[in-house]
């Protein structure tokens, strides 16, 4: 055992020492470099799982334009990394970003104008996605997908307790009580203080517009009536104790999903593979329905995530970078590869009709009618349009702090929203935006 480790370490060290010597020769901070004869190398940042497999398809077809993908930076860190790289002059050529962060990247001069190359694609791309990446008629990103929201629930647990999948928030609250009453250690869901994105989406469903832009002036309405309605609703459940309050994406949460402590999860189209990996024993036990509604018979949904591909202002090869970004999200080869390797709901309209997508049900889920992806298509239609402000990262960070404090200290969720509102307005005003 010992000697094997030493050997492995030794080999790796020698290999790296060699690459260190070689890598430092040009003394250029990892910029895309190309000799006169060699291929162009585009550097691409993404966090999507298995994206390398998709990039491979491109690299095989384009020996002259090789793409080097880097998946090390998560969605949460990518804006900070890009901003720092902008400041330092080491931007990659192409990067993924969530729609929320795109305005920030535009203001900070990271995302480049790609209208010349992409402007003609409007009729091939879902309107919601198009709107999220186009400001004032200028395209700043190629949309990759949207994220129709679902309520995923443990159909087996629900059946056992004799409850139906909730269609309204009242029914949802009832289900929460039923589950918690039946077993004090079990919950329908958790209200996660670290998931500002989820709260934003639920507020949008209730009609909130956290940011809106009218000509040159912004309105910020994070603590308005619709958001407060959502805050009050969840505060009620939390105060009753029928809903848990731990954070998502923690081992605690993963254990709770796996062992049935949590009987549902409000998430989006990309969730089923995660559920399955986390809780393989629950394969085929999950149902997926649209979000509960505020009014019986409504069909409204919010925006939970979704991302696009930007070409950065730092690229030396804008033509090639744009070509790649458009190919990545709109060509059949790429979309086919996406469907095989990752779980997305493409922004490209033709991609949504691919049989490979429509004919499958993710393994975590029960067969249903309409099928999962047919329902995704419907929900996508019911999703409200959203404008993201230029400092969403700040708003989310303030949200996490304010709601964490409210939950641990027993404070009011409405006050927490006001804290977020003030932080965002302060920040935007000091940056020089006109805020009403």
């Amino acid at each position: 055992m010992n000697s094997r480790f030493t050997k492995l370490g030794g080999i790796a060290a020698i290999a790296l020492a060699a690459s260190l010597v070689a890598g430092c020769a040009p003394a250029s901070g990892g910029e895309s470099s190309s000799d006169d004869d060699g291929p162009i190398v585009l550097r691409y940042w993404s966090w999507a799982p298995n994206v390398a497999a998709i990039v491979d398809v491109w690299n095989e077809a384009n020996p002259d334009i090789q793409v080097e993908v880097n998946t090390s930076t998560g969605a949460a860190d990518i804006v900070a990394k890009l901003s720092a790289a902008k400041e330092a002059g080491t931007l990659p050529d192409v990067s993924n970003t969530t729609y929320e962060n795109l305005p920030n990247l535009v203001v900070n001069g990271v995302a480049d104008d790609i209208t010349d190359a992409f402007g003609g694609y409007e009729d091939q791309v879902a309107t919601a996605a198009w709107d999220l990446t186009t400001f004032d008629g200028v395209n700043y990103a190629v949309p990759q997908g949207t994220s129709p929201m679902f309520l995923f629930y443990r159909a087996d647990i629900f059946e056992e307790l004799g409850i139906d999948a909730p269609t309204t928030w009242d029914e949802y609250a009832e289900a929460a009580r039923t589950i918690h009453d039946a077993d004090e250690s079990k919950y329908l869901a958790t209200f996660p203080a670290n998931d500002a994105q989820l709260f934003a989406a639920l507020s949008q469903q209730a009609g909130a517009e956290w940011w809106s832009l009218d000509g040159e002036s912004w309105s910020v309405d994070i603590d308005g009536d619709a958001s407060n309605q959502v805050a009050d609703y969840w505060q009620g459940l939390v105060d009753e104790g029928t809903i848990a309050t731990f954070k998502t994406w923690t081992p605690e949460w993963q254990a709770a999903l796996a062992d049935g402590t949590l009987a549902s999860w409000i998430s989006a189209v990309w969730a089923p593979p995660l559920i399955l990996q986390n809780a393989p024993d629950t394969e085929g036990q999950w149902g997926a329905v649209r979000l509960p509604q505020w009014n019986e018979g409504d069909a409204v949904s919010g925006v939970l995530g979704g991302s696009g591909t930007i070409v950065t202002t730092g690229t030396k090869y804008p033509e090639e970078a744009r070509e790649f970004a458009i190919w990545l999200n709109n060509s059949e080869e790429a979309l086919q590869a996406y469907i095989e390797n990752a779980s997305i709901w493409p922004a490209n309209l033709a991609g949504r009709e691919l049989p490979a997508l429509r004919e499958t049900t993710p393994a975590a889920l029960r067969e249903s009618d309409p099928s999962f992806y047919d329902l995704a298509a419907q929900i996508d239609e019911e999703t409200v349009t959203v404008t993201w402000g230029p400092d969403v990262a700040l708003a989310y960070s303030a949200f996490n702090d304010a709601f964490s404090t409210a939950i641990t200290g027993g404070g009011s969720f409405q006050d927490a929203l006001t804290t977020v509102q003030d932080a965002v307005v302060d920040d935007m005003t000091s940056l020089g935006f006109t805020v009403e």
Partner: protein
Amino acid sequence: MTSQTQSVRGTGRVASGPAPGDASAANVAAEASARPALPPVRRRPLRPRLAPWLFVGPALVLAAGLLLAPLVYTLVLSFRGRQVAGGGLGLATEVWVGLDNYVRSLTDPALYASFGRMLVYALIAVPVTMGLALLFALLLDHLATRFRRFSRVSIFVPYAVPGVIAALMWGFMYLPGVSPIRDAFAAVGLPEPDLMGPVSVFFAVANVTIWGSVGFNMVILYTSLRGLPQELYESARLDGCSELQLALRIKVPLIVPGVILTGLFAIIGALQVFSEPNMMMTLTNSITSDWVPMMLVYRDAFVTNDLYGGAATAMIITLVTLVASLGLLKVLQRRAFGGES
């Protein structure tokens, strides 16, 4: 020389060359003030002028480039800010904002709250670390204790675990649903403790650093104990001194300078605490992104994208840290090392 070290020397420990006490930071710092009083003892026949600079040069160049320059750069950034040209999604440009960032930072209650939490954390982490390190060091030095070699190595092992990983590991052990600690409580019929509640979280975070640093400090103190003259013990024992008395009355006072110096490094470490709470923030509602000053700087510069505001906060914290550390050094120098004369 200090009274403490003199007593050591008086009992027969005559070090060759400079006395051990010379080695402490306090005395090194005191050297400068002491120097003018010293008479010029000897003339060096060949006094090299260039050589010392050649030896110190590489360190100075690196320190200037990698410590001083970044600090100056931070200072410059702290006076700058971003300003958006148009109203909607205009491009932001860098502008001079004077003291605005400082005003914003100093009027933010979060800054003071973070210092407060850092102090609470330090008040737990530093004394417990030093207390346990001293206790274990004395036990290791106690001849009748068994398993000393095994214990010494085992307690030192956590030092090998990176703070980020230690925080993740302990986080797992604190979290309901996966916590073996809570399982253990449940198994014996006790109520499961909330290990990361609003109050217990201070202990939870402190525990991660205590766990990681006790062994290191223990070995330092143990080595110091081993350096003490054994004859002292024999005579004390024969004089009827119990092992406990021996430890408290003879061993501890003799290694006090070492304890204080390692304690000082522990305090400096506590002032800079970052990795552990930052990692544990992702696990619990009890830690916010402005929990301690370093997290605040990191958040501003790296999460909410306000490099300039972060720079101002960083300068304020650096100043406070420097003043506090140097002040502490001065006080310790006077109190613990008995002053200069």
